[in-house]
């Protein structure tokens, strides 16, 4: 019996399988190369890069919570230039699509990083992290408002010919409206979800556990929220959705794929088990084989809902 075909196409880029490492949890790949063969991944999304270096937030930056964790790293990164000089050339040794996540404080900063990244070698696609606060609009996240999100994406679209993925924040009223708006503005794929806003308190010190008080929740705790959003958005748009949120096993990934995700990204799970992306790839293949499917696309959105 031949092995099932795991290949997928997202925003015009070909992935050998649908399993991607999520932004911010996998660095630029280097740290995990001793644990797994990066050539086996469907793609890698970098930690979000900004045009200028960012020092990030004070500690504590994380806190473990029931079935999840909070983080407020604050987009610490060495800036686009250092990334292009030190990390991209290193990643080029692998047979691995590199999706560069970009962020900024205002549209101008997003455009500058977009233009810079678009003229360097080794980038397969851009993932626009629209969860960043828009400092020109009182720090309200770009991803909170369909108009603001669409304006940003349309502007970025004019700065680059690279395939464009837009990563949505779940901390919004109507996720479908935002997804539709950014697709109209030129997004060729949608990643969702980013982290869910949350907080935790140490009752002994009476202090918030994160120095920045509020942070982003990730891990299995957010999986049902992510799955619901992926299902709603996948039905409403005609570009692929990358499902993200609490995926730690092949079964988790398959839930997202059945709900309509064309690919999945694994974040927090790699902290516990660096092998998890590989185990997920193998588990998806096993599931397809066991159930007699020749290719992954046969099960994308194959959710059966009783009348």
């Amino acid at each position, binding site marked *: 019996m031949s092995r099932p075909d795991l290949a997928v196409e997202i925003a015009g880029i070909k992935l050998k399988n649908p399993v991607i490492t999520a932004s911010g949890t996998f660095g630029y790949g280097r*740290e995990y190369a001793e644990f797994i063969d990066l050539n086996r991944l469907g793609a890698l999304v970098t930690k979000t890069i900004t045009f200028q270096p960012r020092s990030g937030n004070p500690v504590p930056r994380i*806190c473990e919570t029931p*079935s999840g*964790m909070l*983080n407020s790293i604050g987009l610490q990164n060495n800036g686009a230039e250092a990334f292009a000089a030190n990390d991209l050339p290193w990643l080029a040794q692998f047979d691995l699509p590199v999706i560069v996540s970009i962020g900024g404080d205002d549209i101008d900063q997003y455009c500058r990083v977009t233009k810079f990244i678009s003229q360097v070698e080794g980038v397969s696609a851009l993932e626009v992290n629209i969860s960043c606060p828009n400092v020109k609009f009182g720090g309200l996240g770009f991803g909170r408002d369909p108009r603001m999100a669409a304006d940003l994406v349309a502007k970025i679209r004019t700065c680059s010919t690279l395939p464009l993925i837009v990563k949505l924040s779940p901390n919004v009223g109507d996720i479908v409206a935002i997804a539709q708006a950014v697709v109209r503005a030129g997004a060729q794929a949608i990643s969702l979800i980013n982290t869910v806003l949350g907080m935790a308190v140490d009752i002994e010190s009476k202090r918030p556990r994160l120095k920045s008080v509020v942070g982003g929740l990730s891990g299995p705790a957010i999986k049902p929220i992510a799955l619901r959003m992926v299902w709603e958005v996948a039905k409403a748009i005609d570009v692929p959705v990358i499902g993200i949120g609490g995926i730690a096993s092949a079964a988790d990934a398959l839930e997202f794929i059945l709900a309509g995700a064309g690919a999945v990204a694994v974040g927090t799970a790699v*902290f516990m088990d660096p092998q998890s992306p590989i185990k997920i790839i193998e588990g998806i293949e096993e599931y397809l084989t066991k159930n007699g499917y020749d290719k992954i696309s046969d099960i994308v959105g194959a959710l059966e809902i009783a009348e």
Partner: protein
Amino acid sequence: MQVKATVLQKDEVAPQVHKIRFFAPRIAKSAQPGQFVHIKCGEEQNYILRRPFSIHQANSSDSIEILFKVVGRGTSWLAKLKVKDSVDIIGPLGNGFSLKSRPGKIMLVAGGMGIAPLIFLADKLAKEHTKTYTVIGAANKELLLDYMNLKRLTRKITAATEDGSQGVKGLITDILPAAITEDHPDVIFACGPFSMLREVAFIARREDVDCQVALEELMACGVGACLACVVKTKTGFKRVCADGPVFDSREIEW
């Protein structure tokens, strides 16, 4: 590297303090004093993060030891392990103590659980016949861990306990200046709570002694990817897991 390590031995060496020896030849062979391991505690999905522990000993070439205090869920789980149980361990991680400048006299400064990485170091130094002096502090006599080991491995031990049950009654930083004056170390290697290390760094600078400190911070990945466990240094945030956990004390923004 990521390995499945079997528990070879487990002892409660003081109330709520346990020592576990794991069979982990690949980690043991490359481990350096000051490095740590990142341990998966519990099988269920509700432990999201591994727990970091200093390598307490790795001299037998096929096993490593950790020494830890039960403070929460992960350490409670570890404390219940039995001989022959198998545990998922990543390591050795981080940068250990630097012995590059071949110091003549070394002073180990251990506050509470801070003794954990220093035994491995003391053992290595003893094998190299380096002159080593120890200043140790804890809440009480029972928690002056590894006292007998230190006696064997180092030339002299000066101790302080908060309740006065052994050594001087007080804090380790109360007895450190006199110990420095008496023993003239070329370098101090210190581990303990952050507030103690800050004080040690201050004393070391005042006495003009080089000082390396092993820091702790809340960690997620443990390998340098996620930027959770940073410490503020003179040249910006650095990762405790990958740039440390041992730092030159003058580098830190205390």
